[in-house]
């Protein structure tokens, strides 16, 4: 079967693209590991137009409900392994099978960046975590370190200060990137700020027992039970065989969400578009679907 459009990903960009594609009557399928993407893992969303405050899971549920109204096939729980050109269209391979499509919109989003130090993978989910909102409550009364001095790191630190016995924020930079208001709050709340400091290793037995950091004073071992890694995210684009990308792995798109491969579009956080926001991703998804519909129109 040849689809007019295959959308990879069902976060804000992918779902909005699907809604627009359905209204354009494109023969469309959505293939995604999950529904809602990173937005579904957000806690309080206070800047999505129309909602003064909505949680990420609630917003994702609203998106899903809207998408379901159109009856498009949505293959949830299926991971795309490869997108390659195939004659005049595309071959999309997943862990379960293959699809052929005239056009593809890549809206696969981003994934949390790893520290890349010994112990990080070994103690994954055994003290090392990338989601303070999820796992923070498990560290009540424990000592924790947050790696990352941006807003996400301080957001995690402020959440953890309410429950942990001690919170140390570690950052590699000379100056913290977080908004000063957040840094002041964390300091006032009793957080220790350690920067510039480089994480060397995470240590433990069955669970994490400490983190080794190198500061100007030399090697220090902080005894902690939890390590929260908040050092940004990387674009999930490695499965796209062709298409130009920048040094960060983001797919390069023009204002019509076109990549440099004809018929291959991209939208949202996986692209080099300015500002990774839910509302921006939705707009980009809409643009990509409109541009893809025009492309399909030109083919037929």
């Amino acid at each position, binding site marked *: 079967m040849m689809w007019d459009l295959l959308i990879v990903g069902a976060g804000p960009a992918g779902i909005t693209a699907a809604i627009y594609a359905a209204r354009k009557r494109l023969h469309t399928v959505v293939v995604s*590991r*999950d*529904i*809602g993407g990173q937005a*579904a*893992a*957000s*806690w309080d969303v206070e800047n999505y137009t129309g909602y003064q405050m909505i*949680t*990420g*899971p609630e917003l*994702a*549920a609203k998106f899903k409900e809207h998408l379901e109204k159109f009856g498009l096939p949505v293959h*949830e*729980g*299926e*991971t795309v392994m490869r997108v390659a050109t195939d004659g005049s269209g595309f071959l999309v391979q997943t*862990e379960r099978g293959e699809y052929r499509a005239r056009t593809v919109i890549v809206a696969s989003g981003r994934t949390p960046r790893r520290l890349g130090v010994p112990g990080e993978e070994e103690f994954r*989910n*055994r*003290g090392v*975590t990338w*989601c303070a*909102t*999820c*796992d*923070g*409550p*498990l*560290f*009540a009364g424990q000592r924790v370190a947050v790696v990352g001095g941006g807003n996400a790191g301080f957001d995690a630190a402020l959440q953890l200060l309410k429950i942990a016995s001690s919170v140390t924020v570690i950052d590699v930079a000379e100056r913290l990137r977080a908004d000063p208001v957040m840094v002041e709050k964390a300091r006032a709340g009793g957080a220790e700020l350690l920067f510039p400091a480089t994480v060397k290793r995470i240590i433990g037995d*069955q*669970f994490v027992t400490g983190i080794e950091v190198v500061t100007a004073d030399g090697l220090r071992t902080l005894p902690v039970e*939890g390590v929260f890694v908040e050092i940004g995210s990387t674009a999930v684009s490695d499965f796209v065989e062709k298409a130009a990308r920048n040094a960060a792995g983001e797919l390069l798109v023009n204002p019509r969400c076109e990549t440099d491969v004809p018929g291959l579009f991209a939208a949202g956080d996986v692209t080099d578009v300015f500002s990774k926001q839910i509302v921006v991703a939705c707009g980009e998804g809409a643009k990509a679907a409109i541009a893809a519909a025009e492309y399909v129109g030109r083919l037929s």
Partner: protein
Amino acid sequence: MAHSVIVYGTASCPYCIRLKQFLAAKNVPYTLKEVDRDRTAFAEMKARSGQLSVPVVDIDGTLLVGFDPAALTRALGLE
């Protein structure tokens, strides 16, 4: 076949909420153990899974960590 499903989660965890929404959408009944409020349940989860991360879901005695729709679909025989 009805499955025995236990969800270990916290109230604030977005992936726990997604997991519960997923099970509800598939009409799969489950027992919820809130490990941030129930220290016994937390100790049970930690001992059984060796994990310090939520959600953990027990399907007929097999433990899955995290919200993974593909793995849940397979484990529940929903394919």
